[in-house]
């Protein structure tokens, strides 16, 4: 009974804030609404007694990714400004795309729900088992995918550094170029004034 009540509460929170996150016109508010959605999902994991995933959801999504999102929004030009309304064509295409996504996920869930009911025991999963499953090389142990993901992250970091840094030579050139342009503008202005 209480389980169902809490589930309904969480579901309402998740659905309401998902809709708000998409429809809000302030980018930063969308980010905060998304944060509530992620926290609600963490609540669902807690209901399932899956404490590890619950803590990961909070630490990684709420405490990590959302902080980066918010900081990135701060760094954009005018984060408080209203977003322009999308054209009709964009609304239709994106809604079609999201319906396809929902259908795909729904199909997978409906197909596998029986299996989960038989395999999941509903009791708390031991930290050591999770560690073994992630770091082992035997059957049903996932060291290789784990490491492949870390290589992907490494590639992301290298890429970010490549984009963010400028060559020192290039920077000098840029600096000189802007300086020359400024001088040109000034001299033109002076000419106009004299005329």
């Amino acid at each position, binding site marked *: *009974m*209480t389980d169902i009540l809490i589930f309904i509460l969480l579901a309402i929170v998740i659905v309401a804030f998902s809709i708000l996150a998409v429809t809000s016109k*302030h980018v*930063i*508010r969308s980010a*905060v609404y998304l*944060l509530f959605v992620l926290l609600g999902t963490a609540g669902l994991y807690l209901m399932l007694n899956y*404490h*590890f995933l619950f*803590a*990961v959801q*909070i*630490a990684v999504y*709420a*405490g*990590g990714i*959302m*902080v980066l999102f*918010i*900081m990135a929004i*701060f760094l954009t030009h005018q*984060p*408080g400004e209203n977003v322009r309304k999308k054209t009709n064509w964009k609304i239709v295409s994106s809604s079609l795309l999201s319906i396809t996504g929902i259908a795909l996920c729904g199909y997978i869930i409906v197909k596998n729900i029986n299996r989960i009911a038989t395999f999941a025991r509903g009791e*708390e999963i*031991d*930290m050591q088992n999770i560690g073994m499953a992630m770091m082992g090389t035997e059957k049903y142990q996932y060291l290789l995918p784990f490491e492949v993901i870390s290589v992907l992250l490494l590639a992301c970091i290298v890429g970010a550094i490549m984009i963010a840094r400028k060559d020192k030579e290039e920077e000098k050139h840029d600096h000189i170029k802007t300086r020359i342009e400024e001088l040109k503008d000034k001299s033109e202005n002076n000419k106009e004034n004299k005329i």
Partner: protein
Amino acid sequence: MLLLNYSQPLELSGIIESVDTFLRTNMSPGWATFVEGVIVCVAILALYCIIALALIYIERKITAFFQARLGPNRLGPYGVIQSIADMVKILIKEIIHINRSDKFLFYAAPFFVIVSSFLAFGVIPFGIDLQAIDFNIGVFFYTAASSIGIIGVLLAGWSSNNKYSMLGAMRSGAQFVSYELSAGFALMTIVVLSGTMQFSELVEGQRYCWNLFNGHISSIIAFIIFMISGHAETNRGPFDLPEAESELTAGYHTEYSGLTFGFFYLAEYLNMFIYCSIATTVFLGGWMPIQIPGLDALNEVMWYIPSYVWFFGKTGLLIFLSLWVRWSFPRLRIDHLLNLEWKYLLPINLVNLLVMVVIVLTDTSLAGLFPSLLATN
């Protein structure tokens, strides 16, 4: 359990048990659980406020001691009622509304900060049977819960529509995200040593030898790094540049007044207490009294001192250390601060984690070297 061998006249487990049986005999199981939940919530809330009031008074007195002055001394003997008077004052102050700011985010921000510190507060074991919830992943939960607070700080800085607040929030974000990493790694080092993340098992494992000594070199390095990064996470001491009053007025909470400011203030004080108590539990044996195997008479005497006194004693010692640091060092510059984390603490920490793994694998921790003296089981 082994604990029952010694008499513990002053523990609270008896009272808790009698309340539990009283509720269960008089109500249906569902309602009994509900009422117990409410009681626990109220008890934790009350404890939270009382600790905050006590900490504010203690901090002012210790600060005065370091600066060779008297501190609060007008209200009550030695000024003990001063912080209560301050609390009443802050409660009846007007909350000033800011024009052209995002109202929803402006008023939501303090709640993020206080809820996060509250969640972290809930998992601390204060003594025997004095823990609200004993997660299997306690240490990890603490890291996760305390990481939400920074969102409140960022939103506060942004929604205040004030350049100083914004600068403070950006500094605080950079600082928190970096030092959180160090704190997490330092805790992981001890998790490797003790093989568990559950607070009750961590405390039980330190019965005869604290983790600080058990992992010798590696543990001590982890302890120092955890204290430094905990200090930096709470925006205090030499790391208080997010709210550096001489350059940013008050940083991210410049525009807050009354109770909304009170939330930030409360959370800052309690975060100091929380990281000190986590350090106590993880490194200094938590509520476990000092015991030496074989010396039963001594152990009996030690158990007469109730566990919560041990806990608050050890935590108080760490808080004193943290205040000592706060009033002894000048404020860092932001680039020095980030250098300290990314160029020194993090590499040291990663190597330290490897050293700890080697110590555990070769069984050269103190408990491994002298199993007859120090091993728990």
